[in-house]
């Protein structure tokens, strides 16, 4: 692997998580996205790393979709919210 491609991999790896998250507080520029996607199209190592990050994120998001607060707890809190308002109004 040449120094240039090593440097490109290093540059890419520092941005993969931001690329996957697309969080509004830390967006990649259009140029960064383009450069990263071009690199991922040609680099198996960085593509594999991206797949791993994506897999970890999907697994954790899977927790989110299956981990619901108990409906009774939500109902109690909604009742509490109504009581807070009505006591103040009364």
């Amino acid at each position, binding site marked *: 692997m040449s120094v240039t491609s090593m440097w490109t991999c290093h540059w890419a790896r520092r941005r993969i998580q931001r690329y996957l998250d697309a969080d509004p507080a830390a967006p990649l520029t259009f140029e960064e996205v383009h450069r990263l996607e071009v690199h991922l199209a040609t680099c*198996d190592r960085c593509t594999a790393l991206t797949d791993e990050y994506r897999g970890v994120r999907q697994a954790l998001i*899977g927790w*989110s979709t*299956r981990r619901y607060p108990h409906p009774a707890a939500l109902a109690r809190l909604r009742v509490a919210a109504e009581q807070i*308002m009505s006591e103040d109004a009364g």
Partner: protein
Amino acid sequence: MASSSASRQDVFRTHVEPEIEVLLRVGQTLTGSWADGEDLVQETLIRAWTAIDRFDGAHPRAWLLTILRNAHLNSLRRQRPDLTDDTASFDRARPAFGATAPPGPEQTVIDRALDEDLERAVARLDEKFRTVLLLIDVDLLTYTEAAELLGIPVGTVMSRLSRARDRVRLQLRATGALPTTATTGRTGSLAQRKR
């Protein structure tokens, strides 16, 4: 913003009540238990109602998370007066599972195997890394919301999140849930199991 009782109630119903579920998830992540999380959200609702006149109507979730954070810190200070303002330094955040949606039988087996690997990997993280990981990837907060909640800069959230994911990724790879080499370009067994 709101002056009359009716309009205060309108603001509360419009901006606060829809966020109760998110607040409860985050409360559970911060406290480590659904019951304590529920108490924390109840305290947050009381404080939010008291402050509703000062709420400008923008970014209700961020406003509520700040209230929740302050309520949580006050609760912690009562227990530990030496506590810093970084709630991630508190060590009770744990992955936990409450009532779940009913998955199919095959998905149940897959999820259970994956959850065991994943839960072990997450549990091994240092508290400050685990808390950020849970807030972003499980409670689905943005970087900014997590930063405001924890009282730390966005850059610190990103740094902790990156390190947390890296450690979980390497742990899962070591247990065979991910490929042992990153040279094939193939999607690992973890992703395949999630399909």
